[in-house]
Each structure stands twice: as structure tokens, then as C-alpha cells.
């Protein structure tokens, strides 16, 4: 798991100003330009880094996200959503997002939740399936339920954007 960790470092060192991305990081496919910024993470981060530490820092998040993506791709309920995604980019941006929200020393450079899930047709049941995978990945990492719940509290409202607002 050293490779993604290195890329997170690379991402951290990249200028975090709100500007469009021109060159894809190594190993990633290029994406259409979009406005970057921490606001794209979709929630206010925790003020301190207690949750980030409870998630075992970047090394822990790296393992959690790897397991989450693996489960999302393995589960027939969610596999189709992740079939053609750029796993390298997904891994990097998910680690950034969870790190940022948990109060860790990260900037989020990915798309907004609305952009990233536009026209995917995500339904509540799919959202819940991914939550289930995340919980299992956090269990495997040995993150206590109370800390899992704190992270889920940041992610749960995103259902309104990913599912409800994408309805029509």
C-alpha cells in the first residue's frame, strides 16, 4: 500500500488553490477541468484530529479505502457503479476526502459529490450498500463503532445530493 500513500503525499504537495486541474497525476486518467476546493468534500471537517487518529491516520485510511473499493467492486449490488471508474483516482480522492473530513492534514482535490455522482442513478439502497462496505472496512481496520459513527455522521447527509437531488 506504499504506492497510494506516496500519491497522497504528492497531492498534498500540489498547490491547493481553487483552479482547474490540467494534468492528471501519474497512473490516473485525465478528467475534464473542474473547480477544485475543500468545499467539494461535501461537509465541514472536524475541528480537531481525534477522529483522524482514531482512523489510524493516512496509513489506516489507505487500507480502509482500498478495502472499500475492493468490496464495492466485488459486491454485485454495487459493482456496476464502479465498473469503469478510475480506481487509482478514486482511491486518492477518497483518502483525501475522508482525511480532510476527519480533521487530518489533507486538502480535497476531487470533484463535488454532485459532480461525481451526476446521472449515475444512485438509489438509497445503493448508497446504503456502500455505507455497509465502509463499515466493514472500518471494522477490519479495528476502528471502534463510536468513531465509525462520527465519520458516518459526516457522510450520511450526502445521500440528499447523491440520491435525492439526482432524481430528475
Amino acid at each position, binding site marked *: 500500500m506504499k504506492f497510494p500513500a506516496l500519491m497522497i503525499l504528492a497531492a498534498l504537495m500540489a498547490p491547493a488553490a481553487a483552479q482547474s486541474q490540467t494534468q492528471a497525476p501519474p497512473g490516473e486518467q485525465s478528467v475534464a477541468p473542474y473547480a477544485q476546493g475543500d468545499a467539494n468534500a461535501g461537509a465541514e471537517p472536524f475541528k480537531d484530529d481525534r477522529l483522524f487518529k482514531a482512523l489510524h491516520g493516512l496509513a489506516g485510511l489507505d487500507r480502509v479505502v482500498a478495502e472499500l473499493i475492493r468490496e464495492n467492486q466485488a459486491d454485485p449490488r454495487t459493482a456496476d457503479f464502479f465498473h469503469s471508474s478510475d480506481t487509482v483516482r478514486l482511491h486518492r480522492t477518497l483518502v483525501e476526502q475522508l482525511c480532510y473530513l476527519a480533521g487530518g492534514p489533507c486538502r480535497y482535490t476531487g470533484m463535488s459529490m454532485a459532480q461525481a455522482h451526476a446521472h449515475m442513478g444512485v438509489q438509497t439502497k445503493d448508497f446504503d450498500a456502500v*455505507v455497509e462496505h465502509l463499515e466493514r472496512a472500518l471494522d477490519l481496520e479495528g476502528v471502534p*463503532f463510536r468513531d465509525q459513527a462520527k465519520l458516518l*455522521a459526516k457522510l*450520511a*447527509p450526502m445521500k*440528499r445530493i447523491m440520491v435525492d437531488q439526482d432524481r430528475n
Partner: protein
Amino acid sequence: MAVFSNAVLVACLALAVAGSAEAREWRWGGKLDLTRGVANVEGVGGGGLAAWALITGNETADGIGGELSGAYVALPNYSARVFGGGVGLYDRLEVTAARATFDTGATGAKLGLGRGFTFDQTIVGAKLRLIGDAVYDQDRWLPQISAGVQYKANDRGAVVRAVGADRNSDIDFYLAGTKLLLDESLVLSGAVRATRANQFGFLGFGGDRNHGYGAEFEGSAAYLVTSKLAVGGEYRSKPDNLGFAREDAAFDLFAAYALTRNLSVTAAYVDLGDIATFRRQRGAYVSLQAGF
């Protein structure tokens, strides 16, 4: 918060939901576990004693779900059984039906009713989610708020009128608010109920001391120990309409455990206070519930 899903049920019915601009897949199941509550003593989605604002069944806004439940209450002088079932429609509307039996056992003879005399009650309920989402709205204070009605019909009209009740069937109205505070691993719920029921309706409705509707409160607080285990307590105030015997508020301390995605068990210590002149009815409550 493991998620309900059943490989058989996931054989999704490709029906478009009418009224939606975009065809949405109609689906079974998918609701997060512990977010349908359990069935209460009246067969309504909630805690053991209280009605919650959550809609029963495992369905999401895209489908239909349901539940079946059985509960047993053992008290020093009585026992009670409740069997119920419910349907949840699009996580919006809940329709439930339950048959509840209050068994006087040996106490029946002392009450002059005869040993093993039972009061039976049929309860039909409907609950509509008005606003809010108890689970996903973690960034808002607003709880999930639902309004409900319950029609209760007791089959012992002559007896309940003899002890002073006005009638043997009636309608309860309630407004419930429920919130999951994930940040704190807490579930909080409160409801206001307009009711005339004596001992949940087992002793009829209204009485010689008070004929009209009163506003009663029911509340629950639960702590999520893990995604499968919740422990908590409940309180439910009740009217005191009958002159022949005092009626008290009810309390419980419960633990609810999700055995599987579809099956949960609840065990509680329950204190129902005085019932029909017999003091301090404190005992055990167990219920088993299947959700789909």
C-alpha cells in the same frame, strides 16, 4: 448499521415508480439496519412502549417493506401477548395491524372474571412521515416527524363498561419525532398522543373519572453500543380515567439486538405500575421481529 439486503429479494422488480420524471427501479429492502425500529406493544414501528416516527419495514423511498412481530410480557399478576404485522410504503406510509391479548391468568378469579379471563384487542394503525429524515439528516437538528392514528377495538365491551369505561373502541392520534444522533451514537424519540385508552385500551376508553381526550407523552432514548446492539429506556404516560383502580405511567429498560439483517430480538425490564388494583406490575418483555 449493517444494511438489509436479501439475495432473493434483490431480484429487483423493474417497475418505474409512477409520478417520477425519470424511471426509478422499484426495489425491495435497502434500509439501514436499526432504522425501522422494532414493533411496540401496539404493533407500531417504534420502541417497546413508544411509537416512533420511523416507518416500519426495510424499504427505502424506492420500494415496499414489511415486518412481522410477536411479543410477550410477563408480569406478577398478568401476562400479555401481541402479534402484529405491518407494511411500509416508500419509507413514507406505514400500515399496521396487531392482535393483543391481556391474560388475567389466576388473577382473573380474584377479579371476579374467572381464571384465565382474557381481554383481546385488535389494533389497526397508519403512520405518515411528514418531514425530516432521522437517519440521513445528520447535519440538521430537525428530527423525522410523523403523524399517526390507531383504531383499537376491545372485545370485552360489557366488562370494560362495568368497570366504568365509556366505550370499547376508540381512536388514538399521535405526533412523533425521532432523531438518530450518529455523532453521539444516540437515538432520541418523543411523541405526544391524544388518547382516552385505559391500560392501552385493554380496559376500554374514557371513564367515570374523565371522559375526554388527554395529551400523553412517550419518550425513548437508546445508545448504540454497536451497529447491532442498542440499549435504552422508555417512558410512556397514560390517562387515569377509571375510578375503581389507579393507572400509572409505564417505564422500560431494554436491549435490542439484530440477530441477522432480517431478525431482531428485544428484551426489556418493564414497569407498568398498578393494573386493575394489583400493585407494582413489573416484569419482563421479550419480542422477536422479522423485517423484510
